[in-house]
């Protein structure tokens, strides 16, 4: 067993921290955080700066524009950038979900077409999975694709989509064989988000984050955009899940939450209050555990081992902690914690209010807590066998 990072990995972490601490980077972060409500927080400039350093896809092979490093180096970069307040969902969707899926499941042609442009920061991508009537029960989805000479024509509605309004491409799962068993009739396609028939409509969430409802009306997709084979969609999505679901993005946000709650404790001079000390020590302990569950997944990946049960445990633990931590922040902060960052004189930057609106989404997005329990119980423990 080895719980340490190599000296090179430690140096990388310091390098990322030094970059994030630069005055111009800090100014960029402040500027994005202070944008008015309902204004996009994504900073293309910062995204490019990370790309220029090879930090968007450090773990991909160099032939696809990656850094040729392992999942551990990528994890270090993501952990630091997210904790520092870099908007995480564009990276998570583009690189971690879309990109990793293409790397793992795509054809050679698809890899060469998309991955270098993702790694360079030129292209943002997303996924088109969830539908209004197919959330946790994704396999019941109804969007259809029917063949038309060498192309496919897609019709359907996708929802709770993240960054669809910024992305150029999306990985869609649609039903190609309505007569097959539910999980055998699904197929993956890469959809051009600017193709005729794609309409992106905003929905605003409790967290002030924009998601989208996307309607696909007779959207023509070339056959070459199919990922894997027809009918393979469900299996492939689940294969990719074990790579993308590390819990790292969520848990890095929780590390940020903890930093901010400690900021409130200091500002209100409550460091000697035993209730506060007990609860924050408890959350800190759980954050350490959550990080270990994350790094178990990531380090296993670096050694070529995928375990979707470990992934579920990691996602579950970190996101449940997120909610407890923001409730604690609201309790400790009292009335002033209600003030948002748009108030003239908020408490500790107004982050308690923001985090408290963000955390409920974390136990829903990317697989609900209930689905994690289900996976651990039925696929891991095999309670029914």
């Amino acid at each position, binding site marked *: 067993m080895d719980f340490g990072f190599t000296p090179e990995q430690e140096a990388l972490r310091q390098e990322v921290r030094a970059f994030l601490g630069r005055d111009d980077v800090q100014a960029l972060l402040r500027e994005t955080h202070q944008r008015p409500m309902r204004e996009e927080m994504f900073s293309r400039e910062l995204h490019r700066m990370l790309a220029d350093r090879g930090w968007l896809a450090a773990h991909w092979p160099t032939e696809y524009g990656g850094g040729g490093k392992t999942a*551990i180096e990528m994890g270090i970069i993501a952990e630091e950038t997210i904790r520092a307040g870099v908007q995480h969902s564009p990276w998570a969707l583009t690189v971690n979900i879309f990109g990793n899926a293409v790397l793992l499941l795509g054809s050679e042609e698809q890899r060469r077409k998309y991955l270098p442009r993702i790694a360079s920061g030129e292209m943002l991508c997303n996924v088109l999975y969830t539908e209004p009537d197919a959330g946790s029960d994704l396999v019941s989805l109804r969007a259809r694709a029917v063949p038309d000479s060498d192309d496919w024509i897609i019709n359907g509605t996708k929802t709770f989509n993240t960054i669809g309004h910024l992305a150029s491409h999306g990985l869609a799962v649609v039903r190609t064989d309505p007569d097959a068993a539910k999980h055998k009739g699904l197929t993956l396609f890469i959809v051009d988000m600017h193709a005729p028939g794609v309409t992106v409509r905003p929905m605003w969430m409790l967290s002030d984050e924009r998601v989208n409802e996307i309607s696909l009306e007779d959207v023509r997709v070339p056959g070459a955009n199919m990922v894997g084979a027809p009918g393979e969609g469900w299996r492939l999505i689940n294969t990719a899940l074990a790579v993308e679901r590390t819990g790292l993005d969520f848990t890095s946000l929780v590390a940020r939450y903890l930093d901010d709650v400690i900021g409130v404790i200091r500002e209100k001079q*409550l460091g000697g209050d035993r209730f506060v000390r*007990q609860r*924050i020590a*408890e959350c800190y302990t759980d954050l350490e555990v959550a990080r270990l569950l994350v790094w178990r997944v990531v380090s296993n990946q670096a050694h070529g081992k995928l375990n979707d049960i470990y992934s579920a445990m990691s996602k579950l633990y970190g996101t449940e902690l997120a909610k407890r931590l923001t409730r604690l922040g609201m309790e400790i902060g009292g009335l002033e914690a209600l003030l948002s960052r748009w108030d003239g004189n908020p408490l500790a930057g107004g982050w308690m209010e923001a985090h408290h609106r963000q955390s409920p989404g974390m136990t829903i997005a990317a697989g609900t807590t209930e689905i*994690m*329990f289900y996976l651990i119980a039925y696929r891991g423990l095999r309670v029914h066998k």
Partner: protein
Amino acid sequence: MDMRLDSEQQMTRDLFAGFFARECPSTLLRELEEGDGHSPEVWGKLAALDGMALSLPEEYDGLAANFTDLALLYEAMGQSLYPSPHLWTVVVAGELILRLGSQGQKDALLPKIATGEMIIALALAERGSDDPAAVQAAAMPGANGFRLSGQKTFVEFAHVADALLIVARAERGVTLFFLPADRKGITLSRQQEISGGQFYRVDLEGVDVAADEVLGPPGGGLEPLNEVLDRARVMLAARMLGGCQAVFDLTFRYAKEREQFDQRLATFQSIAFRLAEMQTRIDGARLLLYKTAWQVDQGLVIGSEAAMLKALVSDLYRHVTSEAIQIHGGFGFAEEADPQLYYRRAAVEAVLLGSATTLRDRVADALGLF
């Protein structure tokens, strides 16, 4: 970074898990609870398997295994709830003798610890506190050294101990005394506690101790003792975690067999999800255990880390044992079933060497809240 046990570690784990599963079934636990709580036979067999020698240096007949290996032994002990003076003899006294003992003390004592010939009990706690810094038992100047008086509580396995490690306050401060357990002036009385374990109240009435029975310098006991107690907290947490996994496994097996409403318990979501939650928390705590042990093996000081681990596992062990009884239903509440054995042991170990609340205060100290 690689969080998987390597093949040697797996062998160590399997060796000891197999040993305790064979040698310490719950029937033995029940016999021991009726009797004097100590099985010289199992203790001897564990010694033959190098269970005591494992972590000691080679020059004292030890195997010089690392801290992580010791944690694997403790996890295995906990799985079978094996009751023994190992923690006090090897992890606490052995380490303190190694750090503070004169060459004569080391030569005389450590090889005997390694072979299991010597059992040592730690007399630290007093009514109201188990914090070494708050010790009240007095070490006054005596004829040939010191004279001890006061009362110690929760001295585990004092009744089978060859020697006592007594923490007392001398003029210069907290001092460690190492003396034969049958010294005049020492009286033991068994404490009746929830686990039916072997805890003793030790009355010290004018106990004469020679100057060369002091371990380390007079007044110099506090810091090394606290450091060694942190190591002991890691091992205790390992033992508790072994218990968590074992009582979970027991409950899981039962829930897969037991049928109500024509359905196996484990397949009700209300049960399945709780099983999932428990296994997740146990997995996470185990990673924290291994990380902390690894930190010791890297030569890092573990202060708040040990406190954090023990606090986490204390809460977890109580939770898992309580859930185990609930999921077993009425049968789980019965004395003849095993969950209650774990439940009662959890109650003891959760507060032994510091309650979760006490330990979390130390974690908070390390967080920079001011």
